[in-house]
């Protein structure tokens, strides 16, 4: 699994700058910050060979001419004069490099996605690592912000880990899960939709304002819910669907599909982020094995939004069979099924289990129990409740209505990634938000890749032989050796190979890229 985070980008006091250009400055600043430089001192380019953004998991490919321009993510983006003219805004020094893409030594990708800087975490095998390497991305973004702030001639850039400007624009935080190819996609849709309409109760980031432009009054559970308009579809920027069908496996396509999840909120709260990945992975495992609960919503999109607006948790929602259930009841259906499923397959066993499943189930149960009895007791764990508590304290002290601009500011500034400004970090520093990981574990993940996936191979190639790596992607690393005229592309199609166990010694024992490649291609790896 893995996480993608698009950051909101802002130059306070002005919005005259070109957003795409600002985003290139973030990537460039981080490239100056890190020692993991690639060929010729520049960035490692992204290898687009195996990208296939128009393949639909339902079994067809959208013709390029019918696709929305934002869907064509398989070509090198270029910041052209036309694009700047279209978008408008200043770009300052035109001779400065426009860096769009970097592969990092921790196996992640940092790049410009439309008009936002985006960090895609390296592949991990469990929810705690997903939290760790996603949080590492916030430190990457912070390092870039600091560097820019210290660079004369550049405007100060703030980055926000949120999902909307409350003026009708939304930008995503996506999750990716590896799934077996043979599983019929309709099973994923059926099993996942009610879960996705309700999981915001445990991982919503909270939002002041309703409707896509935020003009409606009040608080809601999710940042993203109001931006979803369809049940199933390929798009990610228009007509957003609850279940996205992009079929770009980034792996052996006969064996795997990558489930691309676009419905989540960006989470700063570690507990909410942990539950987001942990519970979703459990539900996917149930779908794979036919043990997901049979719940079907009469109107999933309307329910998604109703659940988000019902932060007092009182409403019931219509199912296809005529029953009405609360969102919390639907979550309980999934938890009970997951508990039984994990007990049956042994994954939650206290000694012989995987260690992660039991922890996720225990946390999920604790959170659902408190949501039913004393939701405010979850203010140290669940992100929307933490934000709501702070907002309610302000409302109580200063007698504020929901439209008070200070509440909108608190909502926005909650997600400022600078610890001295971000209100989430202010609460974290005061011990009011629970840590699942010590700070140094997250800092370590900025430098090092996970050890148990192919991200280890990618990250170590950048760390050890960066000057000889001219390109990389999720499923390839491309070397250029001075002694050879042809590039060498190493495919990494198997997500669970290229681990430390399999390749660690090779990296340690190879002083240069030529030796490494020679041994790699000769050996049984």
């Amino acid at each position, binding site marked *: 699994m893995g996480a993608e985070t698009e950051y909101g980008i802002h130059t*306070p006091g002005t919005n005259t700058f070109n957003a795409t250009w600002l985003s290139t400055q973030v990537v460039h600043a981080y490239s100056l910050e890190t020692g993991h430089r690639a060929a010729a001192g520049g960035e490692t380019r992204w290898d687009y060979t195996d990208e296939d953004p128009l393949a639909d998991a339902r079994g067809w490919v959208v013709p390029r001419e019918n696709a929305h321009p934002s869907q064509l993510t398989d070509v090198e983006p270029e910041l052209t004069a036309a694009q700047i003219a279209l978008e408008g805004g200043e770009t300052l020094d035109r001779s400065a490099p426009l860096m769009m893409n970097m592969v990092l030594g921790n196996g992640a990708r940092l790049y410009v996605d439309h008009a936002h800087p985006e960090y895609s975490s390296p592949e991990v095998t469990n929810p705690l690592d997903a939290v760790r390497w996603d949080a590492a991305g916030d430190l990457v973004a912070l390092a870039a912000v600091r560097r820019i702030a210290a660079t004369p001639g550049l405007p100060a850039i703030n980055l926000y880990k949120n999902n909307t400007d409350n003026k009708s624009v939304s930008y995503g935080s996506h999750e990716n899960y590896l799934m077996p190819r043979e599983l019929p996609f309709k099973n994923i849709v059926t099993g996942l939709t009610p879960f996705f309409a309700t999981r915001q109760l445990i991982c919503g980031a909270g939002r002041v304002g309703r409707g896509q432009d935020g003009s409606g009054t009040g608080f809601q559970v999710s940042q993203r819910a109001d931006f979803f308009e369809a049940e199933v579809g390929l798009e990610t920027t228009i007509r957003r669907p609850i279940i996205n069908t992009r079929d770009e496996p980034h792996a052996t396509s006969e064996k795997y599909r990558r489930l691309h999840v676009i419905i989540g909120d960006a989470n700063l709260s570690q507990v909410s982020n942990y539950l987001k990945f942990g519970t979703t992975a459990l539900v996917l495992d149930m779908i794979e094995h036919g043990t997901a609960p049979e719940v079907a919503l009469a109107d999933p999109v309307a329910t998604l939004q109703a659940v988000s607006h019902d932060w007092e948790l009182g409403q019931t929602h219509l199912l296809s069979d005529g029953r009405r259930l609360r969102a919390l009841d639907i979550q309980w259906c999934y938890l009970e099924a997951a508990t039984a499923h994990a007990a049956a397959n042994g994954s939650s066993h206290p000694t012989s289990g995987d260690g992660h499943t039991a922890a996720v189930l225990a946390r999920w149960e604790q959170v659902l129990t408190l949501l039913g009895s004393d939701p405010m007791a979850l203010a140290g764990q669940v992100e929307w409740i933490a934000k709501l508590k702070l907002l309610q304290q302000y409302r109580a002290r200063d007698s504020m209505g929901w439209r*008070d601009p200070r509440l909108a500011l608190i909502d926005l500034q909650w997600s400022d990634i600078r610890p001295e400004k971000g209100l989430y970090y202010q609460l974290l520093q005061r011990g009011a938000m629970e840590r699942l990981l010590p700070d140094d574990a997250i800092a370590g993940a900025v430098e090092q890749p996970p050890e148990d996936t192919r991200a280890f191979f990618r990250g170590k190639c950048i760390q050890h032989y960066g000057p000889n790596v001219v390109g990389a992607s999720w499923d390839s690393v491309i070397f250029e050796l001075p002694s050879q005229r042809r590039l060498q592309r190493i495919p990494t199609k198997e997500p669970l190979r290229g681990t430390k166990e399999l390749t660690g010694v090779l990296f340690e024992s190879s002083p240069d890229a030529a030796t490494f490649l020679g041994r790699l291609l000769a050996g049984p790896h």
Partner: protein
Amino acid sequence: MASQEQRNVSSHTEEEQLDDTPQPTPAPESGTGQGATSGVDDLLDEIDGVLESNAEEFVRGFVQKGGQ
């Protein structure tokens, strides 16, 4: 500064009246003793110190281009 305060206060009053959804009562803090209340006040005072100045303008200026 004084006029800024004035504006905030008056726009407040107007918004209170315009709000058509019922104002939920803020959830009581657990253990609402003197100590707990002043703890909250301390927290809010500290957060007041890091909040961007001129909330309305700052929030209005936060405009994003499209995203996924």
